[in-house]
């Protein structure tokens, strides 16, 4: 197992390095370059001498690899730069924003894994029955409904008309647990509909093919109780698609939070990145993109390790 982890790390680290290079390159992709972005109002009103002084102060006159090295060592020491907009350290700006977003993403992952996974199992076990067909239909709808529409309807109907949950706003976990859950309920629900439907489809097809396999027929022939056949024999073979799904879902959910946080007015990374992009506050954008990139790489690493843990065939294939 430790060999597998080492081997997999050997491929994750280059991925992370490449993503840091891409994030670093962001500053050169911005219109007018970093100095103009920092000065905001365009470079026209500054003399070449002034611009050169700023470049020297920011270390922008050094060769690009050296700049990258300075930036990377800074990042590793927790120094992500200073926000152009608020003139505060990036970490101070971002830190309080990470928690609401992670709450949303983890909440949606848990809800869609539990409910979507459960519905997927049900759809496979009840294939051809009304219950199975209903799940197929429901997940089909869930996949085809646009999330911005769903978010608007959820905020409007569940939040404003029926007053079940607050339509907008956010109460931090540190203030009140119930308030926190209340304010997150609708956005998590909206995010879970699409991911949950997707996962249900995934699990149901994996379960269905497991249920059609010879080892399940043998299990029936042995007189095993259906509960064991479904939940032990077949489900163990449907775990792999769930594991591969989680990093994918995470990336999709990061995109989803941008939309949902803006609709439900949640002060998370999604709202922050939108305002930072419009403010051309590239150190913030850079930090958020870097954070998401590293998280995705780490999740992929964990998923691969978990896969090897659950499927002995993968374990053997990697360690040979």
């Amino acid at each position, binding site marked *: 197992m430790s060999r597998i982890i080492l081997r997999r790390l050997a491929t994750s680290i280059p991925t992370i390095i490449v993503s840091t290079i891409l994030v670093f390159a962001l500053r050169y992709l911005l219109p007018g370059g970093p100095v103009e972005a920092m000065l905001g109002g365009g470079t026209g009103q500054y003399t070449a001498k002034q611009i050169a002084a700023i470049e020297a102060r920011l270390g922008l006159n050094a060769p690009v690899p050296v700049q990258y090295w300075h930036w990377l060592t800074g990042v590793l020491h927790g120094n992500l730069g200073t926000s152009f907009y608020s003139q505060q350290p990036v970490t101070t700006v971002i830190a309080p924003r990470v928690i609401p977003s992670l709450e949303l993403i983890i909440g949606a992952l848990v809800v869609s894994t539990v409910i979507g996974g459960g519905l997927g199992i049900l759809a496979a076990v009840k294939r051809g029955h009304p219950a199975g067909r209903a799940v197929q239909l429901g997940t089909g709808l869930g996949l085809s409904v646009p999330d911005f529409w769903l978010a608007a309807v959820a905020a409007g109907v569940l939040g404003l008309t029926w007053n079940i949950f607050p339509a907008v706003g956010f109460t931090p976990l540190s203030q009140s647990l119930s308030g926190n859950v209340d304010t997150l309920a609708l956005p998590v629900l909206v995010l879970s509909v699409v991911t949950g439907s997707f996962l249900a489809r995934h699990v149901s097809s994996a379960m269905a093919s497991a249920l059609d*396999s*010879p*080892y399940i*027929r*043998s*299990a*029936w*022939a*042995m*007189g*095993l*109780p259906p509960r*064991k056949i479904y939940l*032990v*024999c077949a489900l*163990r*073979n449907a*775990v792999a698609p769930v594991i591969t799904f989680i990093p994918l879902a995470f990336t999709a959910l990061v995109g989803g939070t941008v939309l949902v946080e803006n609709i439900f007015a949640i002060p998370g990374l999604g709202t922050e990145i939108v305002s930072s992009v419009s403010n051309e506050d590239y150190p913030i954008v850079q930090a958020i993109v870097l954070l998401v990139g590293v998280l995705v790489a780490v999740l992929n690493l964990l998923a691969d390790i978990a896969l090897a843990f*659950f*499927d*002995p*065939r993968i374990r*053997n294939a990697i360690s040979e």
Partner: protein
Amino acid sequence: MRGRRAPALPQAAPASGEEVLRIDRLEVEFSGGPARTTALRGVDLTLDAGRVLGLAGESGCGKTTSALAAMGLLSRGAVVRGSISYRGTELLTLPEKELRRYRGRHLAMIFQETTTALNPVIRVGDQLMMAARTHVAGSRTEARDRVLAALADVRLTDPERVMASYPHELSGGMCQRIIIAMALSCGSRILFADEPTTALDVSVQEEILELIRGLVTRRQLAVLMISHDLAVLADVCDDIAVMYRGEIVESGPAATVLGGPAHPYTQALLDCLPTLRGHQDSLPELPSAAGDTAAAQGCRYLARCPWATDACQAPPPLSPVVTGQPRMSRCWRSAAVLAHAARGGGGEPDGPGTDGAPVTSDDGSRG
């Protein structure tokens, strides 16, 4: 949950030769949408303790369907009529929940697949333990002892290592031994073996057949061995039944039936066997069954049969070939086919002149 108690299961071991399973006039129809397919048209079979019954015939003739019907494992769309009785208990009318107590405990079934018949992500030992604890109450230690005994019974050396392995780490032959051990770990009296050696290479095939023969003797097991391979059946069976399109066309002691078939279909199957003695460049083929739907009224083998006469427009009954002997054939011309086989068989069938005469000597005029 259910108020009604199931009939008590027979626990005592059957005596050697005792009839343990009786299948009577078994009919199976599959209804998939508007189309209906008849898979079995009145099959009679009996299984005796300590004996192996071979079930031969081409793909789709109903061999596996017969076994699955006895196990109660046919798909939901199947309509089953007739009777299947296990030591006095009618299985066809049992509710699924009761039937489950018989599966694996009294009737077991193994299939052609070897490596894929075991769950790929669960250790062999855990799978064996799960099976062994399904029907027999008791501690883990007791179950483990039974599993180890079953593994020893199928002649697996190093059972500890086998139990710690995953199926993909073992060979096909080892997997089939494990499957047999699993099927018998709760003490089943009957084993349906559906092409158990087809996926294995010839030397391993021989070992598995020998193993099954040994279990039949040691445990007084009743085996229904399903195969399209007459050579395999000749090797292990006491009795044999040949099926064609949902009917048994010939049955009797294996040596007698394979030594001198009384049905043209059995004869045709035997003609297809390669021999080491013969110097054939190619093996004969059975005439194709394509478009063979007209014979709904008469003999089902009519369109492919070289022996057919006008009499075959009426369906032949399964009747004794020689009065007083246990072998049966579903052919109007059994006697002629048998007489032909007795003269060495093969080649062209005899003309209609020899029909109906009792077989006492070689009375045919042509050869």
